[in-house]
């Protein structure tokens, strides 16, 4: 039911990634007419599936759910696909793999882990802190611009005060601890309590997942806690991450949104400092009373035209840190691989190669100089073990996030460089699953540059913009633009580069749409 183009939509959304879809659904469920424009043929953005070989469907990029919030799903009327909670296996060179599930830690052979109690205590402490931060993720970051006499400011302060009260309720000792560690680095926090071994490696790797940061970088405790905002459960969606994106799309359609794929937005129409619609790459015009953009923040500015932005805003957006460090390697296997020391259940788990916090830090070093890690941190999962529907004929798909891989590789991303990345990845996996290489019938390597080319995500960055302490909360994506409104009246940022950031959770999209409504743009 696509509308003739002389009609004016209440809102046009740029990009049908899950955040764009979440924004569209939020508006449509309030009775607004919404059109989502996606440049690619399919929806989902970084959270889509792809058929990468005959009979094999893989989660193209994102593969696991860390942060999907049930509250958001319910609010948007999304029926999420079934998912299973996966144990995390932190692989060890000596074969004493460590299994983590929730706050439990044991060795893969079933024996007790000496740091189990320490881990449980840390996990408890961090999830408690993370829950506080989690509350903030569902809110627009506060602005104190209005001063204390301003009603809107007071309401926001009340929200902040709640965080303050939450902090107080934790008790003096916890509060002191929270404030002590909030801006510190994960490496020190972890090694205060743990031996530098696979359990520490797992904590360190999760603290920097998707980041241009090593565990010794400041602010990594914050990112560690942010991931734990919903308890830290790691879930594998049935049908691949694409099924999650489809669920977002279905909810959008159900709410009455039009979704147009195959032709992207070339330009945002601005009249009298107000967003009035978009012009597509084929020249067609879609009129609208507001425009929401789920592409990168800098790209969102350029889409409207730099002339509409104050010089300071342009400067900040130009300097946004968004160098991706994660490559995706998808391997089609002719059969199930054999990881030494892991049973079938654990093999189907989240497999981490991060043998110590120092290993993770060392892996980060080369990327600073434009090189890839020789011993990368790998987060691998074989979704077809839990969900056989993904592959036919006994084949399997191994989906791996490989970190650290530079966006701008010294010497460029030549075929030889890609081959090297593939071999490095295989070499690391072979250590724990000898013979895995022989099972590979097809492979796909997506460098950060490829990810940028295929999704438009700046730098191929996981979060569209680094989640550093200078780019989160009231500073996300940049100072002065943290409240979704993007300079021009009726123009909103609704993707991963907005608060609270990336991961498949849809919160940025939902928050942006709610703020647009609250600002009275469509009143």
């Amino acid at each position, binding site marked *: 039911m696509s509308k003739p183009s002389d009609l004016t939509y209440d809102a046009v959304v740029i990009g049908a990634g899950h955040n764009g879809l979440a924004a569209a659904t939020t508006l449509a469920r309030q009775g607004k007419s919404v059109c989502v424009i996606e440049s690619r043929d399919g929806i989902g953005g970084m959270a889509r599936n792809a058929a990468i070989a005959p009979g094999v469907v893989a989660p193209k990029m994102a593969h696991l759910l860390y942060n999907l919030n049930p509250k958001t799903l319910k609010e948007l009327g999304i029926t999420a696909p079934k998912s299973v909670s996966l144990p995390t296996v932190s692989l060890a060179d000596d074969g004493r793999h460590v299994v983590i599930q929730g706050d439990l830690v044991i060795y893969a052979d079933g024996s007790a882990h000496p740091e189990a109690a320490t881990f449980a205590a840390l996990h408890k402490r961090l999830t408690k802190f993370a829950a506080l931060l989690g509350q903030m993720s569902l809110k627009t970051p506060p602005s104190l611009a209005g001063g204390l006499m301003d009603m809107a400011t007071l309401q926001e302060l009340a929200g902040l005060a709640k965080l303050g009260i939450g902090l107080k309720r934790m008790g003096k000792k916890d509060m002191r601890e929270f404030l002590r560690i909030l801006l510190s680095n994960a490496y020190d926090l972890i090694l205060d309590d743990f031996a530098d071994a696979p359990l520490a490696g797992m904590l360190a790797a999760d603290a920097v997942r998707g980041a241009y940061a090593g565990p010794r970088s400041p602010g990594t405790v914050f990112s560690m806690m942010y991931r734990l905002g919903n308890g830290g459960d790691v879930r594998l969606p049935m049908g691949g991450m694409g099924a999650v994106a489809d669920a977002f799309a279905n909810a959008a359609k159900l709410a009455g949104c039009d979704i147009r794929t195959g032709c992207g937005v070339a330009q945002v129409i601005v009249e009298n*400092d107000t967003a009035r619609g978009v012009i597509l790459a084929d020249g067609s015009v879609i009129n609208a009373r507001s425009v929401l953009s789920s592409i990168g923040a800098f790209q969102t500015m350029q889409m409207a035209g*730099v*002339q*509409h*932005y*104050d*010089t*300071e805003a*342009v400067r900040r957006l130009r300097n946004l840190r968004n160098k991706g460090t994660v490559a995706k390697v998808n391997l089609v296997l002719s059969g199930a691989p054999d990881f030494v020391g892991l049973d079938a259940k654990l093999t189907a788990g989240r497999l981490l190669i991060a043998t110590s916090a120092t290993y993770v830090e060392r892996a980060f070093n080369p990327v600073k100089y434009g090189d890839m890690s020789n011993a990368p941190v790998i987060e691998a999962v074989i979704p077809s073990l839990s969900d056989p529907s993904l592959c036919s004929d006994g084949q399997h798909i191994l989906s791996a996030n490989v970190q650290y891989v530079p966006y701008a590789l010294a010497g460029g991303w030549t075929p030889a460089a890609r081959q090297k990345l593939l071999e490095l990845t295989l070499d690391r996996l072979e250590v724990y699953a000898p013979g895995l290489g022989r099972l590979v019938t097809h492979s796909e390597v997506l460098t950060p540059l490829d990810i940028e080319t295929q999704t438009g995500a700046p730098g191929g960055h996981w979060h569209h913009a680094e989640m550093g302490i200078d780019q989160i909360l009231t500073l996300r994506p940049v100072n002065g633009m943290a409240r979704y409104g993007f300079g021009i009246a009726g123009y909103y940022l609704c993707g991963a580069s907005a608060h609270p950031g990336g991961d498949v959770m849809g919160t940025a999209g939902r928050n942006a749409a709610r703020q647009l409504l609250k600002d009275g743009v469509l009143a």
Partner: protein
Amino acid sequence: MSAKIKAAAVPMGLIETPFYPRLAALSRAKSWIGWAGYISPLVLDTVEFEYFAIRNQATLFDISPMHKYRITGPDALAVVNRLITRDIRKVRDGRVGYAMWCDEDGMLIDDGTVFRFSQTDFRLCCQEPMYGWLMDVAWGFDVVVEDESDSIAALSLQGPTSYSVLKDAGLDVAEMKPFDWREVEPDLWISRTGFTGDLGYEIWVPRDHALAIWDRLWAAGADWGLRAIGGQALNMVRIEAGYIAAGVDFQPVHAVMRLHRGRTPMELGFDRTVAFDKGHFNGRRALLAQQDAGQRFALVKIDIGGFKPADGALIYHRKRTEVGHVTSGIWSPTAKRNIALAELKAPFGISVTTDLWADVYVHEEGVWRHKMVAVVIETKPFFANTRARATPPRAF
């Protein structure tokens, strides 16, 4: 072992302007100040002589230390209009416009003059260093920004006989109206502009032509009472003309460290230089918001009773509530009045304009006295003379 300081590659101390040899020869007062890194006269002879020369004869003031930037390229007009608050499309080729520019909060960064050669070629002239800011403003636009501060020498020739001086120097500017801008001879540009509110011109030449133009004007000026002057006399006449000075009547926002020390054009009384209808420019949204919320301050021209200069005096309402202060104040020898620019906190100076008092402190040979003196807000400049605008100008 004694450490010997060697002559460094980077010169130390103030830099001589292109006109320094002539100024140094004329300086009796030996009263110099640093201006933007250059050595500049505060007074050359006596401030009284120099002041009366501006109002009665003709004067030369070396404005080479002003920062000058050239903005050229297909997008030059767009960049200038993005920078400043007024609409440069309304300033024709060969014209000069007074302009203000603001940060994203609408706070004044600086004010200055924009010289329009064509829609692809402009010169910006101002007090504060602006190269970095201009580069940022120009980002994403097809222009070249060049810092001409060092390569262009400039003189301000001001006073009732200034036209005659030019004429006798063989420079024909009879048809030039105020704010006109011409290449009168190859590489010699003259604008009918100035900081005195009187008849006057500014002369712009490549640095190595500086002394030649000085000598030419000096020779022609002999019969017209031409004098060289320093900044102190100029400061008096600019207050009479009601012109504001950066760092004095407003604090350039990039140079302040404390919050809320910036001021908007409206707060400085320059609403007319803000063209909200021209499309986006830096600070537009913030200025619109202030238009709705109302300005916080008002810079006003005031007449203070008595004859004691009231620079820095606090201003009171009903002699009780402190509501502002004088930013620049002098006894005006021409107006024969005690005049000043003052900043008042809203609503004073806007809706409340009476019952205002200046607390004037007077120091007489070791004894301080202070007195509440009545303040009257003025809307017109303290000095205005039709000769300033007459075209062609009169001989004096």
